[in-house]
């Protein structure tokens, strides 16, 4: 079934088509929500809200882009908007200076790469972290990120570059492990 057929069926209220549309996108949306929150319940809430919203807005789809692109832009936008409202989930967020202090010689006290990696990523400014998670972890393209965040593609690239630079500093003493 091609996209136009699927869309026609969804608009006609065909439950199987709705489920097919959901199945085609839910993994990617849920994965992003989970990566950003680190919390199963929140990730589920955001994913559900995203699809409720997407289905209710389906009539606005004009066919200017592929349905899958539109669907993913809408759902991702809802997830990211929701995240802005609940920053409190980021309880482990740490100040960048604090992270830098940790990086400067505390390796013996904190030898776990996973823990340091989490702190370093959590310590990134929101915009940097979002782009880093979407691009380097979940494999979104800069165009997809730009569409979901409502920014220019160049902005996404610039933020990713800065995010990577900060992570290089934070994780410098893990260079051998990371590169290996």
């Amino acid at each position, binding site marked *: 079934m091609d996209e136009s057929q699927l869309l026609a069926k969804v608009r006609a209220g065909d439950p199987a088509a709705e*489920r097919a549309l*959901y*199945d085609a996108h*839910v*993994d990617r949306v*849920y*994965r992003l929500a*989970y*990566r*950003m*929150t*680190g919390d*199963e319940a929140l*990730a*589920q809430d955001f*994913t*559900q*809200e995203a*699809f*409720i*919203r997407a*289905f*209710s*807005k*389906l*009539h*606005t789809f004009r066919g200017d882009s592929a349905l899958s692109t539109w669907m993913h832009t809408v759902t991702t936008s*809802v997830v990211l*908007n*929701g995240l*802005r*409202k609940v920053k409190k989930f980021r309880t482990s967020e740490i100040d960048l200076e604090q992270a830098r202090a940790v990086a400067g010689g505390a390796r013996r006290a904190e030898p776990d*790469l*996973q823990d340091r*990696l*989490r702190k370093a*990523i959590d310590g990134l400014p929101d915009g940097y972290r979002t782009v*880093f*998670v979407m691009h*380097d*972890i979940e494999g979104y393209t800069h165009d997809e990120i730009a569409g979901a965040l409502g920014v220019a593609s160049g902005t996404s690239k610039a933020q990713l570059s800065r995010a*990577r*630079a*900060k*992570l*290089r*500093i934070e*994780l*410098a003493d893990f*260079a051998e492990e*990371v*590169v*290996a």
Partner: protein
Amino acid sequence: MNDQNQNDADLGETETDRFDAGVAKAAQQMYHAPPETPRDDMWTVIQAARAADVVPIRRFKPQPWWAAVAAALVIGVVLGRGSIGGGPDDVTSVADGGTDVPTVVDRATSSGAANVVPRSYRVAAARHLNRTEDFLTMFRVDARSDQLDTDLGGWAKLLLTDTRLLLDSPAGGDPELRMLLSDLELVLAQIVQLRAEDPNEVEIIDDGLESSQLLFRLKAAQATGPATVGL
């Protein structure tokens, strides 16, 4: 040279790329690694929410028929004013069981001409409840996703006017309906006065909707009669 450049220089361009790739790979494995997607659980919730609350936003877009709906409501209420206590052609008795929207039957009165509610009023009220439910559903969904429509105030104003028309009509004596309309009036007035994208006010209205169970009461009011009110 700042820390970043110093660090890049220390690593060299190729090593920098390898380092970035290594960090990305480590993050894919270690940073909030997602469990298996709970597809069916989430789908159940999505379907339930859509069945209960969410209706297509197209139903509220300011189309020309909005004016026709508003006009029909006004005519209904005016006819209600003119025919309350009038002849049987335009009214349905409480006792005849023929009401399609029993929630708007005047239960405050007990007999005779005062015991009937004009059909035109019942139809107008039922349509209004249906529209208002759609609108408040849209408001709640938008409020929770931080994407309020800029035309919200205008639509709320139309609905507020109609709510007040129904409240003022002598045909609208049913105490339950009056209480529902009064609560609607309050919420709609809050939305009309909502300052652009004030998250606190939006949250207060959303909480008010939740605590007063307004959407549930709107659904219940319509569910007690056949669904003959859709336009």
